């Protein structure tokens, strides 16, 4: 990809993290879900957010992509505070969110779904090349390019959602439970693809996963979220070694 060079160059010139969240407060209506969350994602790294059901992991991603407004706190991305920026503008900056639930647009074909991801850049030829690159990464999608979204299997939808996000040239990918309900072989395939992209493009990933072991196995850093607060943020290996923490918050 053409932006590999620029991404690494920026990485070298800027030691500060790509994403720097501090004091983030958010919720739904009166109910506060996230209480002063701090978090940082260095460029080109994978950070896993783990925690029990209802801990606020999906809520965190929704606030970071702009789907849900932050009540307080800052979301610094590449040096600028985006806490009040609109979803569409954050995408233009490089934050791309793949929410839980595999959102293929049912009425559009696979090819149209993929093109949707890069429409905002407005460059037809580049878009075609990006979509073709996505087919190379996910050959299963190439075989179904004229199928409509509603005709895809769960795994195909998840691949489509991730492939579409990649067409947007993300610098930071927010992934919510990419493995939910998928066969281990497909999960491995997707995680492998992401590791490849991170190496090749310097893509940073904030990964939310129920499957703590597999998430920590690909992540550099693990962040444990409990009842809307960060209770630990450490290198993945250190997290896995901390038996007390695992028992208390991760249940294994």
């Amino acid at each position, binding site marked *: 990809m053409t932006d590999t060079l620029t991404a690494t160059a920026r990485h070298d010139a800027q030691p500060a993290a790509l994403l720097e969240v501090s004091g983030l407060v958010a919720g739904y209506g009166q109910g506060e879900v996230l209480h002063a969350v701090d978090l940082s994602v260095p460029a080109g790294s994978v950070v896993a957010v783990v925690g029990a059901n209802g801990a606020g992991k999906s809520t965190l991603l929704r606030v970071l992509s702009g789907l849900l407004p932050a009540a307080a706190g800052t979301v610094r991305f590449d040096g600028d505070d985006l806490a009040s920026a609109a979803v*569409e503008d954050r995408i*233009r900056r490089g934050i791309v969110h793949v929410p839980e639930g595999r*959102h293929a647009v049912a009425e559009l074909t696979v090819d*149209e779904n993929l093109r949707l*991801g890069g429409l*905002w850049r407005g460059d037809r030829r580049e878009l075609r090349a990006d979509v073709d690159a996505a087919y190379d990464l996910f050959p299963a999608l190439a075989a179904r390019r004229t199928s409509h979204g509603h005709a895809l299997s769960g795994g195909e939808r998840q691949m489509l959602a991730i492939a579409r996000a990649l067409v947007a040239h993300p610098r930071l990918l927010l992934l919510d439970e990419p493995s939910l309900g998928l066969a281990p072989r497909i999960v491995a395939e997707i995680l492998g693809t992401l590791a490849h992209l991170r190496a090749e493009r310097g893509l940073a990933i904030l990964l939310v996963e129920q499957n703590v072991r597999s998430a920590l196995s690909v992540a550099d850093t693990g962040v444990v979220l409990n009842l809307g607060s960060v209770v630990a943020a450490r290198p993945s290996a250190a997290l896995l070694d901390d038996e007390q923490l695992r028992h208390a918050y991760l249940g294994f």
Partner: protein
Amino acid sequence: MDVPILLLAGTGLARGAIFAAFALALVLIWRAARIANFAQGAMATVSCYVAFHVTALTGNYWLGLAAALVSGAVLGWVVERGVMRFVDRSNPLAAVIVAIGLVMVLTSTLAIAFGADYRPMPAPFPREPIRIGDVAVISPYSLFVLAVVAVLMLALALLFTRTGVGLAMRAAAFAPEVSRLNGVRVDRMRTLGWTLSAAVGGLAALLVIPTELGLNPHAADLLFVYAFTVAIVGGLDSPVGAVVAGLAIGVILTFVTAFAGATFAPIAIVVILLGVLLVRPQGLFAAREARVA
């Protein structure tokens, strides 16, 4: 009695093409904003007044036609940005009530500014049928209408299937949140939908008026009723449905009028509408259950 079948069919198709275009305008807004635009007739009539005056001032029909398209687009933009954007979307009745209010404002403004008289609207081509031997075939004006609507349909089809904007508009209509997450500015697509729709509606009304009594603040009322039926029959979600149902209803109405008299046309419309609502309430061409939100 010698029935001019060919002429009736051609006239019916031309009429149906206009219904189809106006119904397509309704479908465009429905898909973009989930609003049944009851103000579309009144908005289109405003465009026709603009066209009428441009043609009167310049003596050029084509400038008037261009003016109808442009003023329709501007009006659509203004209505969406100025009014509809602020309507509570969780209540489906709110937009209908606002649209009906808009009808009153636009219609009475037209009546105050220009009076309620019928003004003869010029047609760019003769409405007398061409004869081959003894047989009346079709009028040049009907041919003109069919050609304009065909070009319009083709342009819209290309827009929606071949361009990025068209893809963004479809995606925004089907799945607004997913579209936003992919960087589509959904609110702009909605504005664009209104703009396009109102331009198409203005053009359709401009085509129908020379075949009726003339320009008047209520000139598009009947067109709205027919086109609304067409849109319901075809499926509010379905552009193809609007075209097919429009042509069919145009032909049926023309034959009913010829054989049974003009008073039976509205009855035929009600029968068709009830029949479709009973058998397939989502419309004949709606692919699946229409999305509500």
